[in-house]
């Protein structure tokens, strides 16, 4: 069943695959932008779930070191990302008003 809301990790990952990236590139970029490392286990498991929900596309490739998986956001993923962005921003506004 597709998720109604994205978790913060899913939201960040979806934002990172707007341009096509390999799993390793996503992990490096994730660390650079959030300051926190993400394990390959979490990364690939989350991306697999999002792929099953049709939020991201995946294609396989390879280089001298073995296989590579490229991920890119799908149309439904982009819609979900926009919706979540609005929700998170409303939530932040709500926190600012109450704080």
């Amino acid at each position, binding site marked *: 069943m597709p998720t109604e809301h994205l978790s913060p990790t899913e939201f960040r990952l979806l934002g990172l695959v707007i341009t096509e990236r390999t*799993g*390793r590139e996503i*992990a490096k970029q994730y660390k650079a932008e959030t300051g926190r490392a993400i*394990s*390959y*286990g*979490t990364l*690939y*498991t989350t991306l*697999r779930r999002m792929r099953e929900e049709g939020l991201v596309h995946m294609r396989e490739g390879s280089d*001298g*070191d*073995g*296989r*590579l*998986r490229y991920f890119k956001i799908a149309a439904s993923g982009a819609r979900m990302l926009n919706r979540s962005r609005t929700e998170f921003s409303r939530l932040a506004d709500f926190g600012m008003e109450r704080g």
Partner: protein
Amino acid sequence: MERTTRTVFTFEVREDGFLDVNRLHAELLREIQDRQENSRREPALDVAAEDACIDSLNFEEVFSRSITPMPRRVPLGLFRWLCRGETRAIVDQTRDDLRRDARAMMQEGRSVWTVRAVIWWRSIYCMATITGPGLVRIVKFLLDVRRLFSTPPPSIS
């Protein structure tokens, strides 16, 4: 009759400057197996050919290059065996990515032991994150079962 066998191996050095050791290893093994089979069929075959042009290879240069220091017993190997389907594909992908990480760290000048320790830690962390959700579900299920049997039945008044 004297026979000479000459074998030419191709040592491919990839763009990143490292030797493709896996391929080299596979080629050598294949060659040894072929020679063993041939020598069984033809005992007169001279395997140790004196004129093999092996001196033309600069072994010192080729083999002094750093080889990716992946730990010999990466725990992901056993874990992979336990997994099936897509999870196994994820573990395979993780192993390839860890190999790239190890190479990148070596190029940054980290020591072999540091690289090995980091790869070990990342492998274990990766296994924990893959098995984590499943384990949580099992523990929750067991706790629910325990609660079910430990709750006294409602009294009928």
